[in-house]
Structure formats: C-alpha cells, structure tokens
C-alpha cells in the first residue's frame, strides 16, 4: 500500500506558488474543499488561475480568495451570486473564461485520463466555439475541446483512507472525482480519514492512485446556499 496521508492542510499544500493553476472541486458551496481554500487565503498565494464550476459567494468558498484578490483568472461555467466577482470582472482585475458545465467536467476528466482532446456538441455555433475546430460526425456538428491541466487539484470527499481512496456523499460529489489526477498534485480533504482496508474496495469512487496527499479537514461549515424546505 502506498501511503498518501499528510499531517495537515499546510503539508497538503506544500509547494503551492503564486501564478499556479488550481482546480477546486464543488458545485456552488456543496463539496468545496473548505480547509484548502482557507489555507490558500492564509498563505496569500496570488495570481492564481482557478478552475472551478463556480466562484463561491462573497464571504465563502472561492469568494474568500476574491476578497484578497488572489485570483487572476477564473475558469468556470457559472459565476452568479457573487458581487465581489462582478466588481473585479467589470474593473478588469479578474479575467474570466466561461466554459459550458459539461465541457468543463469532461475537460477535467480528459486530463485525468490522459485524453488530450475530445469532441462535444456543446457550444457549437456559439462564441464558445470561436477559434476552435469543429467537425461533423453522423450529420451533427461538434467542437474539439482539449484537456484542462492544473498544478494543484483541491478536492473534498466524505470518507477517505490512507491509500488515498475516496468516497463522496450525495451531490457533494460533482466535479471532485474528475479533478483527481488532473493536476500534478491532487490534495484531498476528507471528513473521515480511515486506515487502509476500512473502505469496501467495491464502493470507492476515486482510487488512491489519483490522489497524492490526503488529510482530515479540521473544519467543515458546509454552508447551504439556497435553503428550500417544505413546512413540517
């Protein structure tokens, strides 16, 4: 067994530097690597390119990095619900590259799986396809999209083990599994860190080979963005 456990978030983010490209898991505020984001703030690394489906809210998630102006370029599919983001985008401080959500997911998976490029119908005939090769297959038009690679991938899982195996919970899974192994160094923070053998090998969502460093997160606020309920 190859041990992936590191002591804490500081060890987990060792080597991160200004100007790096960082993938960050999560959809909205669900399944985001809260501990790693807090550490990025503490480390004050700047000029980051972040690849993440969303950009958090003003005071949580990637919004915390926006507050400190640590992000130079944001690659995302949807960036609403964030006034800081708007201001920095409008002022030109922040570069934004919008990518269709399914394409974003597949571009991360492609990097993970060693596929340099693939064709997708998403964005054909729109400005997303500008400058990209298009091609017809079976009478339908597709756009060539290339893999996204990063220096660090920061993901959050529910359970993990020393071997780096991960299990996610509910819809907090989202982009997290696809970013594992899509970066030079993949850092996973988990709610529960277990010894090897504690997880059923049949139930593992991400095999440890895709994870370089794993640690138990100290604090998970798990904030809810839109609390919608039925009366009791």
């Amino acid at each position, binding site marked *: 067994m190859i041990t992936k456990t590191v002591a804490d978030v500081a060890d987990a983010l060792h080597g991160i530097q200004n100007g790096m490209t960082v993938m960050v898991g999560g959809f909205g505020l669900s399944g985001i690597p809260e501990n790693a984001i807090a550490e990025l703030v503490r480390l004050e690394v700047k000029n980051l390119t972040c690849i993440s489906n969303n950009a958090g809210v003003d005071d949580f998630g990637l919004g915390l990095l926006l507050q400190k102006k640590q992000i130079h370029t944001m690659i995302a599919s949807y960036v609403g619900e964030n006034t800081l983001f708007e201001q920095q985008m409008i002022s030109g401080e922040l570069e934004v590259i919008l990518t*269709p959500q399914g*394409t974003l997911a*597949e571009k991360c998976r492609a990097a993970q799986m060693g596929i340099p490029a693939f064709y997708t119908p998403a964005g054909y*005939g*729109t400005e997303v396809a500008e400058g990209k090769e298009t091609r017809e297959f079976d009478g339908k038009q597709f756009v060539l999209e290339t893999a996204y690679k990063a220096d660090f991938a920061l993901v959050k899982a529910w359970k993990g083990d020393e071997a780096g195996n991960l299990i996610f919970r509910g819809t907090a899974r989202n*982009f997290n599994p696809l970013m594992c192994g899509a970066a030079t160094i993949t850092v996973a923070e988990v709610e529960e860190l277990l010894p090897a053998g504690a997880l059923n090998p049949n139930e593992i969502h991400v095999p440890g080979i895709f994870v370089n460093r794993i640690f138990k997160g100290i604090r998970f606020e798990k904030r809810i963005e839109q609390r*919608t309920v039925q009366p009791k």
Partner: protein
Amino acid sequence: MALDKNHIAKRIAQELQSGYYVNLGIGIPTLVANYVPPGLEIEFQSENGILGMGPFPVEGQEDPDLINAGKQTITALPGASFFDSSTSFGMIRGQHVDLTVLGAMEVSERGDIANWKIPGKLVKGMGGAMDLVASAKNIIVAMMQVNRSGESKLVSHCSLPLTGVACVKRIVTELAVFDIVKEGFLLVERAPGETIETIQNATAGTLIVPDQIPEMRFSL
C-alpha cells in the same frame, strides 16, 4: 384571461410521457415538477449529479450534500442515484435524458436559443445550458412571450449571443404553444381567450397560422 407561469408549467407537464427522464431549468421550468400527471413514471435529473430528485426536504431535514443545480436543498426518491458531473453530462450529451425544459431570452424561427448573455450587462455564465441545448432530443422552452421592454422574444434571428443553434422543438408561453417548423413558428395552441392578433403582435419572427388552432386545455 392571461395565463401565468404556473399555467405555462401545467401545459408543459402535459408533454411528459411515462418513462421520461427530464431536466428542468431554473425559473418556470422548475414549476413543471408540481404538475406531473398522476400515474406517470417520470424521473427528474439535476445536472449537478442526481437522478430521481424529489421535493424540497421537510424543515429541519436540509442536507448541504443534497442540492439541485439551482443550489436548492432537495431530497432523493427511492431509486435515486448520485454521480459525478461528467457522468451527469454524459446522460445529457448521450441523449439519455428525454426532455429538457428551459427558459430563454430569445428563440429564433429556426430554433436557435439565446439565454445566457446580454452584451454590456453582467455575464453570469452558461452553466449547463449549452450542453443541454446541444444534446437533448427534445427541448421545450418555457417563457413569457415578451420581455420587460415589451419586445417579442420570438424573433427571426437572435440578436443576443446564442446558447445553441436549431435545437428548440416547442415553445410554451402565456399566449400560445408553438412548434419550430421549417417555415418558422407554427401556432399549435392558443391560451384560452387569446386572439390570433394578440399572438401575432407578440411574435416578431415568422408566424404560421393554420386554419384550426385549438385552445390549450388544463385538465389538471
């Protein structure tokens, strides 16, 4: 009587067939879930990673690990499954999702749709809309027929940046139901009491008016 958003949702619910996997966009489309005809076997997919999405949780049962694509807390029904975003969009791209209902800012008479960007205004992003409209076999647009400035959203050519080309099959508004056909917007049904003239005035693109235009019916 002018129809409201709930009527539009009700009318779209009539398009549901047993065995359909359905993806509902934010806004009016979300309301369709409230009007599923009884007895139909339907599953709702939310592109952030759930199939078999249920209603909002009972107060106190909210789970931050269980949300929909609108980031709302939801529940999972028996038979539900969770999966990653790549698998989720694989369901969409691979045409396993049978019906997509979404809103629009403009729809052109050849079925182009624009719903993600207004140049000069804030751009929030396309989210999953471009994947959905490029992939789905059956796309229904649910929207009010004119925008806040009183301009028709059924146009000859979209003036806004496109989300997808030649993809919309049907449009349901507060005034009528239209199908996209080769010649333009085919008027299929009109809202109770609405005249052809009203509908024509609210349609900037080519409108095809057949001899018989039944009224929408709301059996529910």
